[in-house]
């Protein structure tokens, strides 16, 4: 810390010193660069043939937990199930120091519904079961229609969590409202309490229940889904943990979604991958939140559908048929 301060107050000589150091470093590098290119090419070739040889001996390449690629004999592989307790514990804990926030730019949404599809495929839902749904909105007679993607708002004063009798739905320190479907008793009080209709219930056997039987339950993905329990948008807690943007955010082809950490005052667009300042984005575009009068304090912001990139086109009405129960 002291060093940093010094650098600020006494900047110029320090900069020179750094340049001096890098020059010495450069000269060192220059002398080895030639060698590297030759040996590199040689190593590449030998490595290639080496791998070929190994593969033929029943060896398998495995990515270890600390991200090392190793090879082990195929007959020594043991299937390990991920520890369900560890998954639960980290799902309960959340990411320290983070406050996730989503910004949805309504001026860019053309109802491609790629967000919906990506979400449904990740969470094993039917076409009419939603964690995120794109709605056609029209506030009043003289105001225009527009499309509005609607995920769970991950409120900071979540009415759904308040009413849960068994702690099955809970809010984490990083703002995400999650569901533990191994705890949920299916009373649906949370659905009744949610003013955004963000929750869904498994009225019948979930669509991929048969395939997911053997899977270890990951509370951050809510897969396998369970009959008789609630499900809802999780801000893709499993992806965020790995530094990935949520499924819906990265699936959008039109740059509608931004996602990021409020504590860093930054959100990243899922399509352009551009990272911008959250406060500036909201300020310049008059960002707002849904139904603020309810005091729910959502973590999802909307940018008004002004200067739209697309004409509003309803497209063919799709009919949804319930699978027979």
């Amino acid at each position, binding site marked *: *810390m002291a060093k*940093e301060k010094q650098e*600020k*107050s006494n*900047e110029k000589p*320090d*900069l020179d010193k750094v*340049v*001096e150091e*890098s*020059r010495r470093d*450069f000269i060192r590098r220059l002398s080895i*660069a*030639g060698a*590297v*290119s030759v040996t*590199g*090419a040689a*190593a*590449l070739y030998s490595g290639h043939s080496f791998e070929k040889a190994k593969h033929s001996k029943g060896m398998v390449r495995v*990515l270890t937990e600390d*991200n*090392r*690629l190793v090879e082990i004999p195929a007959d020594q592989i043991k299937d390990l199930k991920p520890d369900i307790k560890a998954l639960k514990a980290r799902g309960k804990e959340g990411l*320290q*120091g*983070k*406050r996730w926030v989503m910004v949805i730019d309504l001026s*860019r949404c053309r109802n491609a519904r790629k967000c919906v599809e990506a979400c449904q495929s990740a969470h094993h839902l039917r076409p009419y079961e939603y964690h995120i749904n794109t709605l056609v909105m029209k506030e009043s007679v003289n105001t225009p229609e527009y499309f509005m993607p609607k995920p769970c708002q991950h409120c900071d004063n979540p*009415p759904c*969590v308040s009413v849960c009798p068994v*702690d099955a739905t*809970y*809010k984490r*320190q*990083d703002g995400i409202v999650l569901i533990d479907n191994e705890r949920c008793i299916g009373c649906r009080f949370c659905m009744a309490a949610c003013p955004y209709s963000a929750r869904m219930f498994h009225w019948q056997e979930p669509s991929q229940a048969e395939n997911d039987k053997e899977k270890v339950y990951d509370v951050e993905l809510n897969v396998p889904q369970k009959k008789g329990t609630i499900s809802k948008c999780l801000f893709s807690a499993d992806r965020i943990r790995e*530094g*990935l*943007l949520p*499924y819906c955010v990265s*699936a959008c082809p*039109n*740059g509608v979604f931004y*996602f*990021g*950490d409020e*504590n*860093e*005052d*930054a*959100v*990243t667009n899922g*399509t*352009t*991958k*551009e*990272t*911008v300042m959250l406060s*500036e984005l909201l300020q310049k575009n008059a960002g707002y939140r849904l139904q603020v009068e309810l005091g729910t304090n959502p973590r999802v912001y909307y940018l008004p559908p002004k200067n739209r*990139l697309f004409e509003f086109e309803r497209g063919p009405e799709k009919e949804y048929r319930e699978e027979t129960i």
Partner: protein
Amino acid sequence: MKYFILTVLFIILPPVIAWGQDWVVPEERKGRLSTFPFTDETRQSGEKLYLTNCISCHGNPGKGNYINLVPSPGDPATEKIQRNSDGEIFYKLSVGRGQMPSFRNVLTGDEIWHVVSYLRSFNKNYVQKVMQIITSSAYPGAVIMMTVGFNEADSTVIVRASAVDEQKTVPVTGAEVRLFARRYFGMMVIDEEKTTSESGTAVFKIPAGLPGDKEGNIHFSAKFADEDLFGIVSKDTTLMAGEITVPVSLLAERSMWNNVRKAPIWVILTYTIGVIGVWGFIFLIMMKLRDIYIIGSFIQGKKSSEAI
């Protein structure tokens, strides 16, 4: 506004280009090579980056499970993509086109090369050529260096670029430099593109209230915009240029929505006192049933002894 125009371009351009022809890379960029050899390490790093940034459209290389867009993203393991030169792939990843994002705002130059290295691992016939040294066409024979410092007085970050060879160090002038701050999901552009002055410096204004970590540290990365003139040079530094941000857990305060241990005191008290109170009385009343029984037993006992 800049983002807006960029986005407009991204969205208007694709059909235009899709009608046209192949994606043409400027001649001078085609021959660019990585400055380091591709190793398992670079491939792993590349794979990680691929999984973060590319998989959602391109799918798993070799599996053909890319999503259906126009123009088609394609599977990077196919011959169509692999016949691009390293330089072409690097250019396409950096600049982007249509719905393909421009990753130079997201990844560092080295990171893009890591992705190239990962993609090349799906090509059996590929033999890498490595560029021997970092060259600069503006300062032939010299290596371009950057230093990054923070000026607390006016809250600016100063990037100084110099060309270094064995004899001397000269400032790099007239070079366009961009500054990024590392955020959780990518690199955020700070201020706008700046041109280095006579003394080789570019000054970036830090937006007010830009959050740093607990000590106010921010990880910065400075880059040349024109990589042809100055080579792929970037400088990563951590500076105490941000607002000190001590994250507070959202669960800190007692509330109705918090977990049981964090319930409001009044709820705990009312519930507990109510339940204990009423059930205390119920217990008392149950005891009275016992009293009735004892008295009855006593009377019956007396009666039977009288009868005897």
